[in-house]
């Protein structure tokens, strides 16, 4: 027995494992805020990454531009066809917006679930071990970023803020396979059908919406947006289109597969969306 305790390495290894388990336990708790040493390391690393991100974005933009140039003719043809359509839609949207504003003024309601303010941010790093898909952006607590805000690009929603440092923060992408990564969504049919995004199919690269009631008619090609009812994201952020619907094991509910509209790669600028009003506030009125 004394021999056993003389083995210094074994003791180091054992105490190391105990400390590690304690550390993992500590960091797996539900935490609202990072501890300050973590924030400090994150921000310092973020600063170094910023230096590298700028030239990387430059090069990738250059490559992108070249590719665009080669496709210009084809693209131009398609765009011309769309242009007429666009003018019509714009006029209609303007009219509806005005009407909406008038109606809202009529009932004394300034904010609703869909209204939000935005913060622009640049991507400075991406998690390389791909178990959790996260990004680091160059805005943090100082610029008014808070936990659980939605993050979008021009094409659609990509994720939410997972943790916040002083000048950087971490974005958890929708494609993360994690049981806490849930988003309440509305499928836009004749009326809104609500569901919960419960994961990501790695092999198909599609989001999975489970627990849709069997009697609802969900079809391929329907649009999926955030519902705004879960107190986290504003209403109406675009997520993607339904790709496939199948009944679940017992036929009581349906499972839908959604192809995300946003590209999760080659991200440069993202928009952090701050909701102006919570659902509980609205019901309180």
């Amino acid at each position, binding site marked *: 027995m004394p021999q056993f305790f003389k083995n210094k390495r074994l003791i180091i290894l054992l105490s*190391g*494992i105990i*400390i*590690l*388990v304690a*550390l*993992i336990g*500590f*960091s*797996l708790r539900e935490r609202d805020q*990072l501890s300050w040493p*973590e924030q400090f*390391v*994150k921000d310092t*690393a*973020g600063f*170094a*990454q910023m*230096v*590298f*991100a700028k030239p*990387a974005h430059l090069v*990738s933009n250059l490559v992108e531009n070249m590719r665009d140039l080669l496709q210009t003719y084809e693209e131009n043809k398609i765009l011309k066809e769309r242009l007429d359509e666009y003018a019509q839609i714009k006029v209609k949207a303007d009219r509806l917006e005005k009407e909406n504003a008038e109606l809202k003024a009529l009932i004394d309601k300034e904010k609703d679930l869909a209204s939000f303010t935005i913060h622009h941010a640049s*991507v*400075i*790093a*991406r*998690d*390389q*071990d*791909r*178990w*959790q898909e*996260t*990004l*680091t952006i160059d805005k943090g607590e100082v610029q008014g970023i808070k936990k659980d805000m939605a993050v979008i690009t021009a094409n659609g929603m990509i994720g939410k803020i*997972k*943790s916040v440092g002083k000048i950087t923060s*971490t974005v958890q992408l929708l494609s993360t*396979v*994690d*049981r806490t990564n849930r988003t309440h969504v509305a499928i836009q049919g004749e009326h809104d059908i609500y569901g919960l995004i419960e994961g990501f199919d*790695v*092999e198909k*690269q599609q989001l999975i919406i489970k627990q849709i009631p069997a009697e609802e008619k969900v079809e391929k090609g329907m649009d999926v947006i955030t519902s705004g009812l879960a107190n986290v994201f504003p209403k109406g952020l675009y997520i993607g289109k339904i790709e496939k619907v199948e009944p679940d094991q017992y036929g009581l509910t349906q499972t839908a597969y959604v192809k995300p509209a946003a590209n999760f*790669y*080659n*991200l440069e600028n993202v928009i952090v969306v701050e909701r102006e009003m919570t659902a509980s506030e609205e019901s309180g009125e």
Partner: protein
Amino acid sequence: MRKQWWIPVLVIIFFCVESQFVNFIPTRLFSQYWIVVPRFLFLLLIFITIYYDKKLGLIYALITGLVMDIVFIDILGIYLFWYPVTIYLVSKLMKNWHANLFIVAFVSLLAITLVEFGIYGVFSILQIANMPLKFFVFHRLFPTLGANLAFYILFSYSLKKYFTRLRKIRSEEEGMFQS
């Protein structure tokens, strides 16, 4: 003496390159289902350990492990465990073997496999990942090994040359103090 200062600079550069890699080199370029994980920093640590200094390699493994835990995965203790442990095993293993580039390549791939499996194991236990073992091996482990081998082939020669020269300079200086 001044040449040593390049080691922390190299570590920082490798760290930043790794963090840009996934965003700009989408793996679907090759296949939609492949997951390629850059482990360039880890390769650098292996080189420091084998060709320069074991203790320094371990210290860097501890620091980079901690930083990666904090910056990327928000769970402390995963890289913090697997990086130093693997580096330690590598240094034990290389005691008996001659450090030529082929053997080091083999050892590096072995070490990366161990790290990947280790992290896969921890995440499976914590229920963060639910990837089937077969998918993990064929779509994550093999592409990762391939990509890192390519990186190894490109840079191993110059890294080896740099670290052996550092060691030579240091042993000469030590000799000077002893005489």
